């Protein structure tokens, strides 16, 4: 039921030393402003993972410049932490050349992560908090360097492509003395206000991420966040660019499409007679710890051969990387979906815990 009322103690007034609070009824059926909505930045976890669907994403990977050392990365992290705190609150940073564009954050979040190559370049591989340095290349992959790997990553997500663009500009500008952009991927889902109660559809028309746990649930927390060690309160992030053969897919009947996935195209329900090679059968088995999927669709013009470069920016978060690796290995063997999809980019990052007002992102690694 969406009939909710919120009684807000209206601003108190100080009169002759006494404080008077009055209660006003505010009808929440009135839509709050999408533009003004603000997501918290400071917290034990970085924001942008355990959050209800945001409509747009810009993911940027950077390579650090020659001569940039650990203390320089610490300076960049202090800059990015401060920038992110301001931008996500809808405030321009001092010296922002497009200060006016900071308004209307629309649930803007900014997430920072690191690749193993960063730890190598600044000589702190002994602090890399997980066993894996990269994820394996799978037989189905046709990876291109221009969509793979990176020393640093920014995931800038929200419900307003304008504020995302602006944030990306500010963060890139402040990174300029330290790093160059390696790749950028932009993605989209249904905008705020459309299908709010459902997961979004990918460009094949499938409901994507049906198996995700509910945000702020115990199950979500257990899958997403590392409980101890150097990555405590952080997680691992997989970014894979999955190009879709939409021309081929469009020739398949609706019924056959559902069978490839093992779920109804209409409502995402599991099909009773799902074949063992259907995507969902391959992707999920009982007992798997699971992953948090937060992918976005992409549509980036046309390739040299005239086919549309469109597909899915597959993004997965998991405290235990092996949860992802097991799922991916099964998909690699026999997945009906493989005929219509080609992974062309792949990257692994670690996501450190969130920042407080007294600390910066990645402080435990770069201090």
């Amino acid at each position, binding site marked *: 039921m969406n009939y*909710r009322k*919120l*009684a807000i103690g*209206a601003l108190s007034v100080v009169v002759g030393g006494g404080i008077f609070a009055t209660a006003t009824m505010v009808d929440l059926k009135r839509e709050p402003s999408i533009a003004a909505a603000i997501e918290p930045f400071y917290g034990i976890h970085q924001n942008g993972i355990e959050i209800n669907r945001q409509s747009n994403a810009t993911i940027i990977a950077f390579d650090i410049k020659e001569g940039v050392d650990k203390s320089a990365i610490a300076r960049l992290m*202090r800059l990015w932490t401060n920038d992110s705190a301001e931008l996500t609150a809808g405030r321009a*940073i*001092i*010296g922002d*050349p497009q200060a006016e564009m900071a308004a209307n954050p629309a649930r803007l979040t900014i997430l920072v992560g690191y690749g193993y190559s960063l730890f190598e370049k600044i000589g702190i591989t002994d602090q890399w908090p997980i066993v894996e340095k990269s994820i394996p290349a799978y037989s189905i992959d046709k990876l291109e360097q221009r969509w793979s790997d990176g020393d640093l990553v920014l995931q800038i997500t929200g419900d307003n492509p304008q504020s995302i663009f602006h944030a990306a500009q500010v963060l890139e500008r402040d990174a300029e003395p330290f790093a160059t952009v390696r790749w950028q991927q932009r993605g989209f889902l249904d905008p705020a206000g459309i299908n709010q109660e459902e997961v979004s559809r990918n460009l094949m028309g499938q409901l994507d991420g049906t198996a995700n746990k509910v945000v702020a649930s115990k199950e979500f927390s257990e899958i997403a966040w590392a409980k101890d060690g150097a990555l405590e309160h952080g997680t691992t992030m997989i970014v894979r660019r999955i190009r879709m053969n939409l021309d081929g897919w469009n020739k398949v009947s609706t019924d056959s499409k559902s069978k490839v996935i093992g779920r109804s195209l209409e409502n995402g329900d599991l099909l009773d007679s799902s074949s063992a090679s259907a995507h969902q059968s391959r992707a999920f088995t009982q007992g798997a710890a699971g992953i948090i999927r937060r992918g976005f669709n992409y549509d980036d013009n046309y390739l040299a051969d005239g086919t549309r470069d469109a597909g899915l920016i597959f993004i997965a978060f998991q405290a235990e990387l092996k949860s992802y690796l097991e799922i991916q290995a099964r998909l690699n063997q026999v997945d009906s979906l493989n005929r219509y999809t080609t992974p062309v980019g792949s990257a692994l990052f670690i996501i450190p815990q969130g920042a407080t007002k007294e600390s910066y992102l990645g402080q435990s690694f770069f201090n």
Partner: protein
Amino acid sequence: MKKVIMVAAAIIAASTLSSCGSDEVAGSAITIENPIVRSVDAMSYKNEESGKYMTGSFMTITNSGEEDVTLTGGQSPVAGIVEIHEVIDGVMKAMPEGLLIPAGESVKLRMGGYHVMLLELSKELKAGDETEMTLRFSDGTEQTVTAPVKEIAMDDEVYGADGGM
């Protein structure tokens, strides 16, 4: 199901401004937030006699106390002289009396407005560096902040945020 949430927001008039910045000093009503220093580039002013550059520093200063406080000056390991300046009609002027931070208010120091001027720089500050500076206030307190050095477009000096083109 009706869900009614009572939120009693009691706000005391004198403390509407938050004072939880990282640079807060115990006993001081002054908070300095987001200090930055403009990097030295081809557009930077240079003292032709000494051959040394000068640059500006910008920040937000909040006075959460009940008394007005004035920013009177400061010092920095990288600057021979630290002064408080303002830009009026595109012309930079020193403020020997200092900059008033009224009780309960925030003052933004920015390009084209009030700023802390670092003169006689001992080195050409580059984007990506960090600089320390200590600012002095009329209530007898001092605060030391670490400010990142960043590229800031010089055009702002003339076409300030409130000025337009």
